[in-house]
């Protein structure tokens, strides 16, 4: 009985402390997130909406037919942000493997191969995958301002029967 008494008094202290610390740290942290995220895939790639979020809606291309047109024109470079093992299993024809984790190793070669004005389309495995956005952000920071994100990524491309290799 006694234990129940003091536990009931202490629980709100621990919970309250956590709430206060949570609000405060989240407010000041550069990685802080919004109280409500964007977790509905209908609106694009899912994101917790962090202050420094790489997911930027304006860069997203939702319509796969537009991506196909870009592909058919043949001027854009398709960049695959998935792990290399996934890329090896199959990728959009002509795409380059460029996982964000290997950005530092690969960016120099990329810069010498393509001018900053190059149209780039990044993709990964769909709307639950952020790597395409992470990579797009890194490329934009490196000067490739014409970078877009193909939100539905490889699975949808493959499903449509579009060219792969």
């Amino acid at each position: 009985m006694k234990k129940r008494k003091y536990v009931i008094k202490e629980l709100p202290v621990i919970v309250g402390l956590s709430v206060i610390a949570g609000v405060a740290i989240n407010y000041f942290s550069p990685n802080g997130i919004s109280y409500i995220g964007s977790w509905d895939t209908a609106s694009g790639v899912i994101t917790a909406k962090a202050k420094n979020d790489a997911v930027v809606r304006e860069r997203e291309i939702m319509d796969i037919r537009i991506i196909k047109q870009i592909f058919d024109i043949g001027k854009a470079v398709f960049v695959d942000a998935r792990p290399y093992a996934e890329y090896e299993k199959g990728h959009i024809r002509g795409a380059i493997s460029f996982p964000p984790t290997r950005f530092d190793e690969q960016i120099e070669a990329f810069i010498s191969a393509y001018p900053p004005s190059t149209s780039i389309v990044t993709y990964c495995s769909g709307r639950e995958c952020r790597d395409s956005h992470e990579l797009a952000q890194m490329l934009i920071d490196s000067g490739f301002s014409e970078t877009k994100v193909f939100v539905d990524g490889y699975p949808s491309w493959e499903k449509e029967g579009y060219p792969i290799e």
Partner: protein
Amino acid sequence: MNKKITVLVWNRKLQLFFRLVLGITFMYASIHKIIYPGKFAQIIYGYGLLPNELINIVAIFLPFLEFFSGLFLVIGIYTESAALIIDIMLAVFIAAISINLIRGYEFDCGCFSAELMGYEWSSVHLLFRDIIFLLMGGYLFITESRDYDG
């Protein structure tokens, strides 16, 4: 009489051991989540159990609940309450992992960020670990006591 004292001493040692193991584990586990709430939110999303509106709120507060409960266990204040909170959290984790095991749902977004966040542990391992932790917490909650006169 001697036997009773031995049991008591062992009890104290075990309590201290469990407090440190649970406390340090929970504090350690909370740090990465506190620094990267967005990544933690994505993991919660991956479980596919919470409504979208609650994902971020849980991602913001849960790591601090883990941190403070762990801290209180380590320094030895509010021990029973901290152990109770930890056990409630563990019960929720166990339920979440079990539900996904039963429905055969394993979140795989094919991205590095999720792999780095602990998906190399299989669900069964996690479940087993959490049950052990739950028992430790239960032991602490039941056996810890304060010698009040009144």
